[in-house]
């Protein structure tokens, strides 16, 4: 237990922030919808990591509960997201997010 505690909370929060920004950058710049979904997963996991760090710091179970909630939400999101991408691929023969801009103003 003590060995684990050697990693300080700010470090974990820094990693979490870095992961979140990597995911955000991926959402903003990647054109392939599969990668966009993966980036979203990274962002969700970054948030989950921050919750774990907070739960460990204050020794409260709420953070662990939130992680479970996030895992469920992420699984549902991937299920819906992948099926949408699959439908788009069947329909438009592409998974390039920039190509799929039928609702352009």
């Amino acid at each position, binding site marked *: 237990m003590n060995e684990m505690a050697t990693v300080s909370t700010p470090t974990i929060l820094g990693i979490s922030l870095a992961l979140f920004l990597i995911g*955000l950058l991926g*959402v*903003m*710049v*990647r*054109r392939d919808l599969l990668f*966009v979904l993966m980036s979203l997963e990274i962002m969700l996991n970054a948030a989950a990591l921050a919750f774990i760090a907070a739960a460990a710091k204050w020794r409260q179970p709420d953070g662990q509960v939130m992680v479970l909630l996030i895992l469920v939400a992420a699984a549902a999101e991937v299920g819906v997201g992948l099926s949408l991408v699959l439908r788009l691929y069947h329909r438009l023969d592409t998974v390039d*997010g*920039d190509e*799929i*801009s*039928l*609702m*352009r*103003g």
Partner: protein
Amino acid sequence: MQLLWLAPALPLLGALVLALTGGLMPRRAAAAVGCASVGLACLTTLGVAAGYLGSHQSAFRQPLFEWISVGRLSISMGLYLDQLSMVMMAVITFVAFLIHLYSAEFMAREADYSRFFCYMNLFVGSMLALVLGDSLLSFYLGWEGVGLCSYLLIGFWYRDRRNGMAAQKAFIVTRIGDTSLAIGLFLLFWRTGTLDIQRVMQVVSAPEMQAIALAAGLLLLGGAVGKSAQIPLHTWLPDAMAGPTPVSALIHAATMVTAGVYLIARTNAIYRAAPAAMLVVAIVGASSALYAALSALAQRDIKRVLAYSTMSQIGYMLLALGVGAWSAAIFHFMTHAFFKALLFLSAGIVVQALDEERDIHRMGGLFRTLPWASWTFLIGAASLSALPLVTAGFYSKDAIIWASWSSSRGSAVLGLAAMAASLLTAIYIFRVFILVFLGKQQREVERRPGVLMKAAVAALSLLSIAGGFVWMPHVLGGFSPLRGLLTLALGPSSETPVRGEAGFLALSAVETLVGIGAAFALFTQAPAWARRVAAMPGFGALRQFLLSGMGFDWLYERVVVQPYVVVARLNREDVVDVLYSTLAFLAWASNRVLSATESGRVRHYATGLLLGAVLVTIVLLLR
């Protein structure tokens, strides 16, 4: 007399028939319809006139139909025949009939034969409606019809752009006067509450209506000035020579320009009530007479000389009206119709014979080759310049000059202006005669008049001589049935003394002879002193000044037309609309900006979400 309605109806019917079926008719049939409708109108007029004079009625009214009936307003159309409209009607139908006969041959080679007769018939019909109408409305209807027909006929050869421009000029310039007339008629209707001309005259003659009479008199004069081509709205008339020659004859002799004279004569009760307006009429008339006679001296185009001459003679008529010589004005209208139609038709023969050559300096020596036209032109010229005793113009013009000189409203200035214009008239018309018919022949004659054209000018020649014997001055017996007749309709003219008339007659006779003599001396002999004067510096400029009609066109071009064009150009996009179009532009531009953000790309939206979140965070932190 019950057939009176046929007089305006027949030419209008003829126009209708020609307009609907003219294209299908053979040319002879079109000419026959055109001439017959006016000829029958002329016969009708003779019959009606005989019946009317025999019945000794003061005036004959013929209600025709109710035009508009709304609530308390009811406008009916009717005809009104008195001595004035009878004389006008007789002259109009007869002269117009002769001109129609002449045109049947003159226009024989034209493509749009039936269109020509259609317009001519409409012209005559409108003029008769104007003269015979019993209400201000039917009068105005005829007035506008006449304006329309003059536009159509001046621009008859519409394929040449200049003719179209001349037609538009005539229409627009007279429109200025028409607007003034319309305002005057509104004023009269507003103050008197009736459209019937006779009732209006009665109401306006009342003493308390003096201010209205003055205003209405001046406004009606504005209309007359436009239609009758007097200063300052005269510039359309010389350009109106772009139309075929019979049209010029019709416009100048029987229809159109005399409408203004008829208007003032018909509404003379207004002018009696407003002496100031009468003075303005006299001044406009006298200055136009003098101005046009001066301008005619320098013209090179034979038809333009005659155009300025018409302006000058109408000026005489207005002068007569202005000094209260109502009957003399109508008398001069009658003789002028005869000799001016004669001059135009003779000029038409000359112009056609020389293959559309109109410059009098390139004519000459036609007396031998075109004797018929030469003699008729000579008779017309003599009548125009008032050759003593034997011509109609002498009697009518001298009645006017004598009235402007000696009557109670006349004055020495008006009399002198009239006499000076008379002298100039003799000089300019004989200048044309000498240059065209005497001297060396310069061009071959290509076409000679046929029997119809000869007959028309012969009849007019006869009238140009004999038309004056219905109004003799006192010294020559005083036999003047026409004066008595017109006085019944127009009321008494201003008194002219009997004493001194003989001497005056002799004086003006001498004046005319001097004018004719001067023309012969100047233009056949060309004495040395005359050549020296012509070579003097400034003479060329003076001639150019007179040739351009004393620069009125130049002045109007700069004062009216060009500023108008500038304003029109500025207002091309409609200044008032700028406000609304700016609003529309703003909406459009913001729409463009906002719709550009709707790229349809998911990652752009995600970026937008991020930026929004950052913004909210910053705001929360800074709070």
